[in-house]
């Protein structure tokens, strides 16, 4: 069974998914971060494959991507780093990135590598639903890779239903109409979260964008299966002198 499905079966609520950019702050920090996140009690990790032009991301994640690329991070390097990591890491790992680097790597080759290394899911915000359905779905399915779609406050109910029917693992609910890392007030989003909750989707729902501390995490969890923290975490580890301690403290504060 895919580790994502297993996780939601074992623990239906308060899932904490942490995003970090692979190869950041230093090239070889990737695995240290994943392992420390597991030890600290995070439930899932979303590893960013850095891209030069990340349209859906705000400045924090773009800057971390620029730095990671300068550090030498690329998809082939990431798969090298991940070789054998399943001996030490059991939590689900999802790769997040943009379509172009995956296209250049070769979609089938990419999926094969994901299966070999033990990646559970994939988020490519600029791969639209129609393209996925017509061209990519079979390849991802063949390698057991869950493809995770985004929905936003502007997504119509009919489209959410369609996305839910195509999604595997979970549906990624963007908290507000924004790029990542915006400190928008979450109180206005409660109606949208409640609307999503009332739709009783077949997939679990994780809320992301703008989740940055215990209060926003709890607000998101009240209407979903959990939440994703990205920019706030990237910011926290950016200049950390002791990566493991910083990560431990970050996760503890959220879960306290």
């Amino acid at each position, binding site marked *: 069974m895919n580790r994502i499905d297993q996780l939601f079966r074992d623990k239906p609520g308060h899932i904490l998914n942490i995003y970090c950019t692979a190869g950041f702050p230093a090239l070889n920090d990737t695995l240290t971060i994943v392992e420390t996140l597991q030890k600290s009690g995070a439930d899932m990790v979303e590893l960013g494959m850095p891209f030069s032009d990340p*349209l*859906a991301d705000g400045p924090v994640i773009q800057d971390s991507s620029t730095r990671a690329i300068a550090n030498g991070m690329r998809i082939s390097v990431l798969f090298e780093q991940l070789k054998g990591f399943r001996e030490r890491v059991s939590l689900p790992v999802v790769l997040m990135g943009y379509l172009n*680097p995956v296209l250049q*790597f070769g979609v089938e080759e990419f999926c094969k590598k994901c299966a070999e290394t033990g990646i559970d899911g994939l988020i490519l*915000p600029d791969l*639209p639903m129609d393209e996925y359905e017509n061209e990519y779905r079979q390849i991802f399915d063949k390698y057991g890779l869950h493809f995770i779609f985004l929905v936003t406050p502007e997504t*119509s109910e009919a489209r959410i239903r369609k*996305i839910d029917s195509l999604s595997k693992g979970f549906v990624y609910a*963007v908290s507000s109409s924004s790029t990542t890392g915006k400190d928008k007030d979450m109180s206005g989003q409660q109606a949208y979260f409640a609307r999503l909750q009332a739709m009783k989707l077949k997939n679990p729902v994780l809320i992301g964008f703008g989740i940055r501390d215990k209060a926003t995490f709890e607000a998101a969890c009240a209407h979903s299966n959990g939440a994703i923290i990205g920019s706030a975490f990237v910011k926290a580890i950016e200049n950390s002198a002791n990566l493991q301690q910083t990560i431990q403290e970050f996760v503890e504060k959220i879960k306290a």
Partner: protein
Amino acid sequence: MDITIDTSHSKYHVNKKGYYGHFGGAYIPEMLYPNVAELQEKYLEIMRDPAFLSAFEQLLKDYVGRPSPLYLAKRLSEKYGVDIYLKREDLNHTGAHKINNTIGQILLAKRLGKKRIIAETGAGQHGVATATVCALMGMECVVYMGSVDIQRQAPNVARMKMLGATVVPATSGSKTLKDATNEAIRDWINNPVDTHYIIGSVVGPHPYPDMVARFQSVISEEIRRQLKEKTGKSNPDYVMACVGGGSNAAGTFFHFVDEEDVRLIAVEAAGKGVHSGYSAATSQLGRMGVIHASKTLLMQTEDGQIVEPHSISAGLDYPGVGPLHAHLFETGRATFLSATDDEALEAAYELSRLEGIIPALESAHAIAKLKDLSLQPGQVVVVCLSGRGDKDMETYIKHLK
């Protein structure tokens, strides 16, 4: 006016799914789906509405100054031994072809009930054209411009500000046109309801490449009519235009694309030389990839990171090319040539001294390749003179001879 002609049987124009052959599409994050889907659904319907068309035509005539002249450049023609006509887009209000598109899109934005306009700009020509129509319509205008370009193009920044626009520096990535485009897209993600994004070229997600090409197709429509009046034939032997993203070329080619007896010549910027590492010749250096939500030819590293191009002209300094052009290149329908920085400068001087017309550096790239065509006496060549050279005076003065 036939900017809305049915192109559904064309081998080269966009198909119903938003593709030109393998190129095009709408690789957008879900956050942009409602806006882009609305445009896809409505753009042709709105453009076909007689009231819309008459408002568009009226403004092009009275405000922009269209039709722009098709001028037989006698001394230039003598030099090359053929008849060379210049399509004088440089005489438009604001000094370039860019305003054809911004007039069309602002009318469309009003139809969609939008209150706020955003745009990206490289050299500042599209930014000025957008700021101009926003002033005309009394709409809020925010223009994203790479912080490097803001330094390089001070007069256009001042023009935009004088017209009441807010100019926001793009400080991410390489701080030039592609980053300004990223920032504009991000603004749209953050303001999905009240804002329309006026893209300046035939790039971006479907329907932008086709929509912008159609607004610019007044150029080829006029060329055909004017050429018929002057020569008795509406088809020349060649039409030529420079290509960065490719909006003036798309407008110049539009009504000729399916007229296979007309040769289409696209001229890219070779910068310091196609293989010098400082070039913007996308058709030579690019591979299929996705940039700004469109699948097209793209200058990129082996692992798919987008590369920063180089050209002496900021308007051609784009690492991709519109999907229509990628398709015209792949099918061989258009011939792609490239002109170096030096060739463009030389051509700018040539045109200035022979015809008394100082062209924009972008347009000078097209002029520069007249010498590379194997022309036969009696042939007719139309070159799109996409803009005037005022904005490039600093560069020209540096190379004054």
